[in-house]
């Protein structure tokens, strides 16, 4: 185990996978010349050359489209979107091509591809550079969507995504890049589609993921210290396919459910989990399912405004108290 940053963990994942499989290459804007905005590609051109670590023109449509074509012709592309917000520019490629090519052609195509998308709110980046868009892709069959909350999973999930024969969208929260954490030595994968129970508890289940998980863990401590409520915390880790079994098992034990994410609450992943739980195990619930998410507004610029619209630790605490009536 070493204590390294989230950014370095993803860098190690890239190095290991590019050494292991020469079909793996990466492309995106300013990744070779600059090392990526979060340093997540630093040093890769030196080891792997500018063919395999490619700076692209500012042409999201062409970048994602070419990634898909390259994948169909035997390469394994990792595409950096710079900011998750820019997926919108290449949305046809993601939703009509990437997600559907295998199915539409009756399984003839295999499409290994990873779209790396730095998302989330950080440092007053404002409305066009702060979004969490994972729910969009939950709604489109054909993609996998992963979203790590810590350096160890950042590495393990990225490696798993690269080795997965399906297209995977890899959300990485911008605020996590500099965060450090223990990362196992050597080759390991974090399985796609498996949630992790990161805190055991009996009184309420809190499901979260990505940077929000940090706030949830703080909330869990406050709940334990100030309210004698012992929360079980689940890190979803993968949005598609979603590990609802782990959620159900926990809810059957705790009888209460809160879901917390930084993305806008309306139409978010939390709504899907809440619906699935009430459809399938409603009889186990002893309280309302409560969702925590951002307000229904674009993310504003000024820090007090920004803090106001995205969910905070207290919002999670309050949600749990509501869920317990």
């Amino acid at each position, binding site marked *: 185990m070493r204590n390294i940053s989230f950014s370095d963990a993803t860098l190690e994942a890239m190095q290991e996978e590019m050494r292991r499989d020469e079909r793996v290459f990466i492309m995106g804007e300013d990744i070779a010349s600059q090392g990526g905005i979060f340093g997540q590609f630093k040093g890769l051109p030196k080891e792997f050359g500018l063919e395999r670590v490619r700076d692209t023109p500012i042409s999201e449509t062409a970048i994602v489209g070419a990634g898909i074509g390259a994948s169909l012709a*035997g390469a394994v592309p990792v595409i950096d979107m710079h900011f998750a917000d820019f997926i919108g520019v290449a949305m046809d490629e993601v939703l009509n091509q990437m997600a559907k090519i295998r199915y*539409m052609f009756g399984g003839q195509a*295999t499409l290994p591809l990873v779209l790396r998308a730095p998302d989330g709110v950080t440092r007053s980046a404002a409305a066009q550079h702060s979004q969490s868009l994972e729910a969009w892709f939950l709604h489109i069959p054909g993609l996998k969507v992963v979203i790590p909350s810590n350096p160890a999973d950042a590495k393990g999930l990225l490696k798993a995504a690269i080795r997965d024969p399906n297209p995977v969208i890899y959300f990485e929260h911008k605020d996590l890049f500099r965060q450090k954490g223990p990362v196992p030595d050597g080759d390991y994968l974090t399985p796609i589609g498996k949630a992790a129970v990161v805190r055991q508890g009996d009184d309420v289940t809190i499901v979260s993921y990505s940077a929000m998980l940090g706030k949830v863990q703080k909330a869990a401590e406050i709940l334990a210290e100030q309210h004698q409520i012992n929360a079980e915390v689940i890190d979803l880790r993968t949005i598609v396919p979603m590990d609802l079994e782990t959620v159900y098992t926990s809810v059957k034990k705790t009888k209460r459910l809160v879901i917390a994410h930084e993305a806008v609450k309306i139409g978010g992943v939390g709504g899907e989990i809440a619906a699935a739980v009430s459809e399938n195990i409603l009889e186990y619930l002893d309280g309302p399912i409560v969702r925590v998410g951002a307000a229904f507004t674009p993310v504003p610029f000024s820090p007090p405004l920004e803090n106001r619209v995205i969910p905070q630790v207290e919002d999670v605490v309050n949600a749990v108290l509501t869920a317990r009536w």
Partner: protein
Amino acid sequence: MLLIRRFEEKVNEKFLAGDIPGFVHLYIGEEATAVGVCSALTRADYITSTHRGHGHTIAKGADVKRCMAELYGRKTGYCKGKGGSMHIADFGVGMLGANGVVGGGINLAAGAALAVQLRKAKEVAVCFFGDGASNRGTFHEGLNMAAVWKLPVVFVCENNQWASTTPLHEATAVTDISQRATSYAIPGVMVDGNDVFAVYEAAQQAVERARQGEGPTLLECKTYRIKGHFVGDPEQYRTREEVMAQMEERDPIKKLLERILADELLTEEQLREIERKVEQDVAEAVRFAEESPFPDPEEAFEDLYVEGEADHA
């Protein structure tokens, strides 16, 4: 060319009879483009296609029986009945799929060419698209990127003068799509898309250039869409006379026949033999399609993801 023509005439008939579901966009009148270009390719080369993709698929060497079965939505079709006319594909011959999104295939071909370049191989990728598609951002981004990276790709614009109901000049500021190559510092070549020999020669040069690592070419094939945009199109935007005149003067199959007879490339007997064989193949394709079962409804849940966590290496 004749196989594509007869195949599509039959598709037209069967669609109108209600045997083929969905939308069908016919390629009739444009056969020389697909055949001319694909004749310059090997089986290992890649193509991507458009919503009007039967011609490209057949020209690249796909089996007409499985094409027809796909159009009929049968289990034996290339896509097991999940794609239909607009999404026909045969990865076995490097045909990486038709595309229901105008311009959607342009960068997929550029990407296939990128994969070829990365593995230092010699294949070439070709994308077919219409004049309408050349007004989409994908076209401009793709040409620029392919030019900068010298990708082994040939961009083939089939300028059939129409984008659905819109004539070329109403939607496109330049008169020739090939002029646009200038902006990307690549060769822009214009040929009579209804002359299969001319298309073949131009395609061969472009393909050779790509194979030699000299980068992409924009090849514009001027042709004409004889049929409506889709089968059932009332075609209120143009006159019957215009279409008949084009058919009279420019039908690529007629032109090919004239050339064959003038240059004595084949005898009349040989031509009749080809005609018979084509009729037979198409009849057989229809029989195959009609006798094939529909997929089991449960098959709707197959082929979405590659199953298991297997490493694809």
